[in-house]
């Protein structure tokens, strides 16, 4: 695949992840940049997403979801073909409250990819990534849906194993 094809593929994955994921859509996520293992996403400020009504500061949980989503896109941006991924762990340090009323950005970088695992660092900020609201470190499992068919989670666990595999 040529570099422009890969770039186009990354943009399509970002679009599918923002518009096809109901929670990302509900939060209004958009991808500003994607490529070379890096993804920059934005969540617009809304009063419904406030976590501390006394200050109007957006909920930490919204930042958690944004960092997880941006990190996932960074993993896809580090690969040349699509594979299913799943978050193994996510560690977040909250350095300061987000500024009320402002949109929040997250910049994620997939800095290491092995056969089974991807490692990502990410920061959330309003305008300057050097002055972060929060920093995250995450690990993702690659090919997480191996053998699982669409709708696998509609059945009880274990029942899909018998028909999966191969």
């Amino acid at each position: 695949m040529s570099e422009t094809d890969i770039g186009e593929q990354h943009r399509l994955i970002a679009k599918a992840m923002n518009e096809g994921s109901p929670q990302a859509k509900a939060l209004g996520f958009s991808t500003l940049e994607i490529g070379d293992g890096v993804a920059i996403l934005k969540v617009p400020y809304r009063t419904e997403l406030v976590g501390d009504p006394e200050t109007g500061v957006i909920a930490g949980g919204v930042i958690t979801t944004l960092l997880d989503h941006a990190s996932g896109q960074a993993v896809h941006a580090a690969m040349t073909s699509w594979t299913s991924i799943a978050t193994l762990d996510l560690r977040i340090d909250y350095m300061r409250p987000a500024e009320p009323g402002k949109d929040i950005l997250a910049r994620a970088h997939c800095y290491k990819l092995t056969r089974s695992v991807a490692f990502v660092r990410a920061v959330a900020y309003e305008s300057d990534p050097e002055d972060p609201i929060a920093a995250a470190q995450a690990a993702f499992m690659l090919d997480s849906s191996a053998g699982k068919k669409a709708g696998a989670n509609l059945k009880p666990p274990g029942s899909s194993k018998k028909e999966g595999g191969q």
Partner: protein
Amino acid sequence: MSEAQDRLVAVLGAIPYARFIGMKAELAGDEMTAILPFSPEIVGNPMLPAIHGGVLGAFMEMTALAQLSIAETLKRQPRTIDVSIEYLRSGRPLTTYARAQIKKVGRRIANVHVEAWQEQRAAPIAALRGHFLLTGAED
């Protein structure tokens, strides 16, 4: 209603984002169970479908905050310092429950562990460990 129940309802009712994801909580004596009913909006992966990992993290973080609010007399909502989330199983399109254990409360910092499960308490889908700053607890 007990004083703790009153505080719990007040705390969750006042957080717009708790309403946004549809989180609730129940108290049995001093034991709180947080409840996240399934709704199509909390899905992250529409193929499986699976609940968004961020929503599970957010749900467990708010479970920790709610547990602190009923266990401690606080003037303000505690501030999250850090959280470490482990994803154990895919969140299926079912009701999710969570319980928090306060491991330590110091003068300024609390350490809380949370576990979330769906059909089986013994098969948790995710866990969270976090530190929280107890602002205004001492003044």
